[in-house]
């Protein structure tokens, strides 16, 4: 389990590294051009902390990830993703196996954490536009009796649509909100990194059952 957990987080780090310039360029169009750099630095710090404690359990590991992001990312995505991972640790307490139900509870806790921290709701061109539809798709998947992988795949499709949707709306939060209507036409970098994280976890699940 511990090795699997480390590998899953490593998959996220790889995706963030691969898409570092892409995220930074998206942020350059409507923000302060540092999202990819900040996220890559954040997950570098995360892997450093996790590798130092390879025997950590799932919940403690998630909390550690959150703390590492809080102190290394620097921009608003630090407290947002930091809060998300620390909140996801709560339903994971005492668990060693992640099934569809637990994954959906973790995603819900993470999404609620980001909403609370950022005082954001759907439709404001933020991470929430990817994460909330992803949770809803996952919940529906569970109701339909789908497997963890199928639920994650539905969540990714919904998050992808959410990212596309962010191109059509005005930014209401963060520096992008200074642009008003000029933010239309650009996809939100935060929603995009949320999609990348979900896709990385889905890929990991596909390859490792």
């Amino acid at each position: 389990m511990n090795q699997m957990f480390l590998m899953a987080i490593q998959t996220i780090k790889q995706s963030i590294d691969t898409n570092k310039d892409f995220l930074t360029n998206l942020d350059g169009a409507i923000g302060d051009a540092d999202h990819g750099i900040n996220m890559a630095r954040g997950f570098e710090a995360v892997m450093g902390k996790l590798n130092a404690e390879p025997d950590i359990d799932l919940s403690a590991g998630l909390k550690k990830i959150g703390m590492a992001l809080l102190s290394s990312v620097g921009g608003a995505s630090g407290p947002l993703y930091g809060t998300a991972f620390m909140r996801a640790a709560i339903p994971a307490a005492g668990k060693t196996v992640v099934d569809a139900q637990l994954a959906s509870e973790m995603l819900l806790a993470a999404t609620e954490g980001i909403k609370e921290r950022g005082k954001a709701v759907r439709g404001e061109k933020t991470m929430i536009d990817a994460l909330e539809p992803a949770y809803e798709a996952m919940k529906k998947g569970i109701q339909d009796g789908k497997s963890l992988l199928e639920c994650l795949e539905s969540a990714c499709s919904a998050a992808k649509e959410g990212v596309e949707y962010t191109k059509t709306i005005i930014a209401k939060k963060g520096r992008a909100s200074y642009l008003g209507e000029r933010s239309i036409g650009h996809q939100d970098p935060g929603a995009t990194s949320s999609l990348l994280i979900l896709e990385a976890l889905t890929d990991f699940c596909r390859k490792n059952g």
Partner: protein
Amino acid sequence: MVGIVVISHSGKVAEGVKAMADQMADKSVRIIACGGIENGELGTDAIKIMEALIRADSGDGVVVLVDLGSAVLSTYTALELLDEKERRLIKIADAPLVEGAVCAAVQASAGFSVDEVAAAAESARSMLKL
């Protein structure tokens, strides 16, 4: 005495504002600069802020001055990391950083409460310069 924490994305900005506030403050007022992240890069660090809040509090509470964006989000996160008792007397001032810190330092030196120090910082919003 109410303590003051100055939070900026830049370590240099936070140190500079602290120096200006120190000049106006009684030596017993704890003013802590908290800026930047590891390696001296620009940003805010909720863990570092949490530690600064604890160091600034001598028992009478802390007023926090922030610059932009994530400074506020990181401070809220730092508050969540503290327990109920520790965060009870911590107030974020909705104020300009430099002027707010100087006003807060003056008010804190006179022994006012955390609410009064925060209000003094916020009064800096309407200070005319010309």
